[in-house]
Structure formats: structure tokens, C-alpha cells
């Protein structure tokens, strides 16, 4: 059977299946097996694309090249580790009486459907379907954000739905404008939204329309990336939803939304002379970075703080892609990978830590290293990694972004350094007492799943020390496609 079809079919079918059997005792295992199947299919698909080059599926509806297959593999991997993590985590939540069986069923089936929408958004060739899949991703997660049904979680879910809905409506207007520009060149053949056709004629697209279209698309999808000033939904949704949902929102959804922007940026760059799209992205990226860095120091809730850290990193990545060119694109892609892996690992440990201490308030979480050294060290190492300490991989990508900025955009360097410095001080100052302070917390009924945390951190560490040549080639190839 075709690997691609298998990769999309597994989450879709298992998502439907879990709505029926999601309350059985073995349902969490089905969730893991389905995620494992998706991951294996995507890994084999990646090998196929690396060996044989880009390919289509279902006529020209889907298109897989070295750029999106890299995101596909990452998405499927984080999906797998999150499903492993969520098994014991959700059982603990159930025993604490925070969740009921029907809600766990909803969680598992929506999780699989969310994976399906992410993978569909990544692999579609049609920019209209990309929009549809992005909106579907919001819809599958909105009930997950409100899973605890607390007043705060309902508010977070409502904000998430409305803000992302408004944002995505702007992206639809951008898509309509893009279609309008393309139809003038490609005619009414129905191919005018297919990216592979658009990229061939990108030089002929009307610059005025493309500029307007790119602004709408950047603001629209940027809302989902968490770019300031439309980032307000993100900390609420991350803090109030269950931790596995925070992990996939931060590690995957933000990436996929940014991927959508990158695809249209390629077209906008071809149509508009003078680096208009790149400058816009650099501006938004820097603004986001600075806003997030200064909000970081005021946080009291641990998940909220790391949500702001996600916004900060998304700002940095957007800035990197805005600079453009082989080095910055390479650094941007590397940073996206490192951020996904590190941030989801952090959310895994944070989930267990707050479960142990029964709170998400940082001043009440103390002495993790004494209650459970593994979680304590996991949080400490994850924090050091996300703050860009060597030898972790985040250091490598941040270093590349900084040196590239110094060389080509020196005016931005002080802003970048200031923001990264403020972020470092805020996060490290708060995590240190949580890990090393005094405590009287009790152990949990179900032993936490710690493997995913250290698998993620090990990969981040390995890439910081040594990037395998096939990975470098792959990143280079993807970076070259971004122009």
C-alpha cells in the first residue's frame, strides 16, 4: 500500500474508531499504536523522498518534497512521543478526578484527528485545502483546550476559537487574492491554487495583488503562529488545556502555521521585488520576540511562562526566515526542529511536576529534584536547552541566526541580544528554585512516562554536538527551496 495514503489514513481511521471504543481500558494503547503506525509510515516516506525526490499523490492534490517531508517526520515523531506521555498522565488526571472517561475518549479521538489535519495541511499542494486543514486543526483542538470545563479553560477555548477564527478569515481573504492573481496568469483551469503550478509562474504574478495577499496571509496564519500583536490566545490555551495538548500545540501547530507562511513567502518573493515579504517577516518576528521576552518575567503559571517562551522562539524563527538566504533558512529550519523537540519535552516534565505538586503556580512548585530526580533533571536540562545553552542544539541554531543577523542586519543585533538575555534571566530565575528548593509533595499513583522527555533531549543534545551528514543535506535541500 502507498505509504502516503497509509500515513494519512491511520490517524483518520483510528480517530473515528476511538470515538467508538475510546472508553475501553486498552484505548490508550490503541492511541499509541496508531501514532506509532503514523510515525513508521512517515519515516519510510521520508526515506523514499530523500532517495527518489519529490512526488505527487492523488493526482496533483498532494505534493511531498524535501521541505514538507521534514515537517511530516517531525510532526509524526512528536505525535508518537506525546501519545506515550499522555497514557500515564491522563490516568493520573482521571484519578485526581479532573477528567471523566467520556472526556478521555474525546481527548484520544480528537488527538488523532488533529494529527490528521496537521499532516494534511503539510502535504497538500492546494493552498485552499491548506486553509481548510488549518481551520480544521483549530476545530479539533478547541474542545481539547476546554477539556477540564473550568471557567478559565472555557474562556481560553473561546478566545482560541474566536481569535484564530478571525485570523484564519484574514488568511482566507489572502488566499482569495492569491487565487485572483494566479487566475490572471494560469487561467480558470482549477490549477490556480496548486503550489507546484504557482511556483512556476511566480515571476508573472501581479506584484500589487501579491503584496496585499501576503499581508493578509501573514497576519492570518501569523495569528496561529503566535506572532504579536495577535498572540493573546496562545498563553491561555497552553495554560488551561491538558498538558499533552499544550505540547502538541507548541511543538506542532505553531510549526505547521509557520510552514504555511513559508510556502506563500516563496511565491511572494518571486512576485514582489525588493524583499518585501522578508522585511515584513523580520519586523513581525522582532516585535514578537521583544513582546514575549518582556511578558516572560511577569508570569506566575509555569505552563503560561513556557507558552510565552514558545511565542518568543516563534518570533526568532520568523525573523530568521525573514532574513532569508541559505544560512538563515538552514538556521530557521534547525531552530524549528530543536524548539519542537525541546518544548514538548519541557511540557512533558512540567505536566508531571504540576501533577505532583497539585498546582501550576510556580511559587508552589519546589524541590522537584528531591521528589523525583528524573523529573527535576528533565526540567532543568530542558530549560537549559531551550535557553540556548551549549552543547544543546538550540545553541547551534540561535548562534547561526545571531551571527547571520550581525553580518547582514547589524541594527537588529542589540534587540535580539536584549530579548534573549531578558528571556534567559526570567526563565532561569524561576526554574532554579522549582528544581532545587525544599518540598513536602507526595509521589504519584502512576509512574510518569519519562522516556519521551529524554529521547527528545538526547536528540537535541546530539544535534548540538554533531549533525549527521544526511540531516545536513536534507536541511540544505529544504533551505534552498525556500530561496
Amino acid at each position: 500500500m502507498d505509504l502516503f495514503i497509509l500515513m494519512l489514513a491511520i490517524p483518520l481511521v483510528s480517530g473515528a474508531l476511538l470515538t467508538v471504543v475510546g472508553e475501553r481500558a486498552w484505548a490508550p494503547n490503541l492511541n499509541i499504536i496508531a501514532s506509532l503506525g503514523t510515525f513508521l509510515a512517515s519515516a519510510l516516506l521520508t526515506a523514499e523522498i530523500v532517495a527518489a525526490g519529490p512526488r505527487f499523490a492523488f493526482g496533483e492534490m498532494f505534493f511531498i518534497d524535501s521541505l514538507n517531508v521534514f515537517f511530516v517526520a517531525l510532526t509524526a515523531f512528536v505525535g508518537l512521543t506525546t501519545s506515550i506521555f499522555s497514557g500515564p498522565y491522563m490516568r493520573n488526571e482521571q484519578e485526581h478526578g479532573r477528567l471523566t472517561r467520556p472526556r478521555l475518549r474525546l481527548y484520544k479521538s480528537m488527538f488523532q484527528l488533529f494529527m490528521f489535519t496537521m499532516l494534511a495541511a503539510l502535504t497538500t499542494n492546494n493552498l485552499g485545502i491548506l486553509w481548510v486543514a488549518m481551520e480544521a486543526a483549530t476545530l479539533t483542538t478547541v474542545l481539547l483546550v476546554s477539556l477540564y470545563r473550568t471557567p478559565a479553560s472555557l474562556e481560553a477555548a473561546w478566545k482560541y476559537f474566536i481569535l484564530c477564527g478571525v485570523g484564519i478569515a484574514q488568511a482566507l481573504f489572502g488566499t482569495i487574492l492569491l487565487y485572483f492573481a494566479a487566475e490572471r496568469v494560469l487561467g480558470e483551469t482549477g490549477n490556480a491554487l496548486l503550489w507546484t503550478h504557482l511556483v512556476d509562474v511566480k515571476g508573472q504574478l501581479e506584484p500589487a495583488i501579491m503584496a496585499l495577499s501576503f499581508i493578509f496571509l501573514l497576519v492570518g496564519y501569523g495569528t496561529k503562529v503566535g506572532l504579536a500583536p495577535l498572540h493573546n490566545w496562545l498563553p491561555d490555551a497552553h495554560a488551561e488545556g491538558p498538558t499533552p495538548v499544550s505540547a502538541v500545540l507548541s511543538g506542532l501547530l505553531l510549526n505547521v502555521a509557520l510552514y504555511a507562511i513559508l510556502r506563500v513567502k516563496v511565491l511572494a518573493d518571486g512576485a514582489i521585488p525588493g524583499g518585501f515579504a522578508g522585511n515584513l517577516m523580520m519586523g513581525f518576528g522582532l516585535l514578537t520576540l521583544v513582546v514575549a521576552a518582556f511578558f516572560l518575567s511577569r508570569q506566575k503559571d509555569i505552563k503560561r511562562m513556557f507558552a510565552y517562551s514558545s511565542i518568543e522562539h516563534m518570533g526568532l524563527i520568523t525573523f530568521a526566515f525573514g532574513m532569508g538566504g541559505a544560512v538563515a533558512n538552514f538556521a530557521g529550519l534547525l531552530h524549528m526542529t530543536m524548539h519542537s523537540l525541546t518544548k514538548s519535552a519541557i511540557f512533558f516534565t512540567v505536566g508531571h511536576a504540576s501533577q505532583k505538586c497539585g498546582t501550576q503556580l510556580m511559587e508552589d512548585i519546589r524541590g522537584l529534584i528531591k521528589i523525583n530526580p528524573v523529573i527535576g533533571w528533565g526540567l532543568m536540562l530542558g530549560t537549559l536547552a531551550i535557553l540556548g545553552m551549549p552543547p544543546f542544539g538550540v545553541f547551534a541554531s540561535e548562534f547561526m541566526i545571531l551571527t547571520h543577523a550581525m553580518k547582514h542586519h547589524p541594527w537588529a543585533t542589540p534587540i535580539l541580544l536584549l530579548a534573549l538575555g531578558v528571556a534567559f534571566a526570567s526563565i532561569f530565575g524561576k526554574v532554579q528554585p522549582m528544581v532545587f528548593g525544599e518540598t513536602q509533595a507526595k509521589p504519584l499513583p502512576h509512574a510518569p512516562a519519562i522516556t519521551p522527555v529524554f529521547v527528545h533531549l538526547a536528540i537535541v543534545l546530539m544535534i548540538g554536538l554533531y549533525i549527521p551528514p544526511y540531516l545536513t543535506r536534507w536541511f540544505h535541500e529544504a533551505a534552498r527551496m525556500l530561496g
Partner: protein
Amino acid sequence: MSAVSLSTQLINLFASVILLLAFAMLAQRRVLPLINLFALQGLTLCLSTLVVAFTTGQAHLYGSAALTLLLKAMLLPWILHRLVRQLQVRADVEGLINIPATMIAGIVLVMIAFNVALPISQLSSTISRGTLGIALATVMLAFLMMIIRTKAIPQVVGFLAMENGLFLAATSATYGMPMVVELGIALDVLVGVIILGVFFFQIREQFDSLDIRNLEKLKEH
């Protein structure tokens, strides 16, 4: 030639009715008449799409007209009516809107929308290009409605009206998006409204009201 100009006039007429309905929705304080106005806007949108389809012979536009009729003039208003009945919010009246000020803000938005749309519609060659400004104005008025409303259902109606405006923009600038995309968008809108329906019950259970001013606790301190 005269047939084309008649249909252009019809399209412009329908588009102005849509804009008028957008203003009417902005000023409507009661929830049930608001849903009816939304249904009427969907119906007008369907009629205008039919005229474009008939004049240009674009077969797929008949499909999108049928989809609009089914979804926006019938199914969504029906779901919203049911929700209002089940949630017993029939008597929900928005208190705090200053209608004259809202109308003036709306007029300013319409002027902005026409100015933004002008350069694009000059590049377009469709018979309905004149309505692009109206489409953008409808989107902006719906956006304004979402900002000023304090009850959950009117906010959602605003959200759906925004989608109406976007649909009008697609038919006026380009004779509509490819059918597969339109079907996908319709599916998203439908699923979105159903999920929101579930969500409303959760909100009501928690707060005993659908006033979203209850949902303003999460802030940076």
C-alpha cells in the same frame, strides 16, 4: 450587451442588499431577528451567485449557489434557532450598544473598504468586479459586530457573516474558488458551528449565562 448590463445591475443590486443587511445586523439587538437577517443575507448571496452563474455560464457556480442556499440560508440558521430554543436565550437583548456611533464607525469602515478594493477591482475582468468593495465592507462590518457584541450567539453570527463577505469577495473577484476548496470551507463552517453549539452548553453550565463578559478573567497582571 443589454443582457450583460442588466445582470451587472442585478448583481450590484444584490450586493447592496447584502451590505444593507450587514448594517441591519449591526443594529439588531435581539437574537432571533438577528439570525433571520443572517439567513436573508445568505439567500441574497445565493441569488447574486445564481445571476453570475447564469450570465457567465460557469457551471460550478451553480454548485456553490446551491451550497450557499443549503448551508447559509437554511442549515446554519436552523441550527442557530435550535440553539436559541434549547439554551432558552430567546429574550437575550444586547444592552450596551450605542447604535448611532456604531453606524458612523460602520460608514467609515465602508469607505476604507472601497478604497482598499478599488485598485484590485480595476485589475479584475469579471462582470461582478464592482462588488469587491462591498464584499470587503461586509467583512469589516462583521468584524465590527464581533468586537462590540457581548453575547456569545451574536458574536458567532458576526463570524458567519464575515464568511459571507469572504464568499462574496471570491465570487466577485474570481468567479469563485475551486469546488473542492469551497466544499472544504463549507464543511469547516458547519463543523465549527456544531462544535460551538456544544461549547455554548459548557459555557452556560459553568456561568448560567451566555454573556461573554464572564470570559474576561485571563489577563496579564
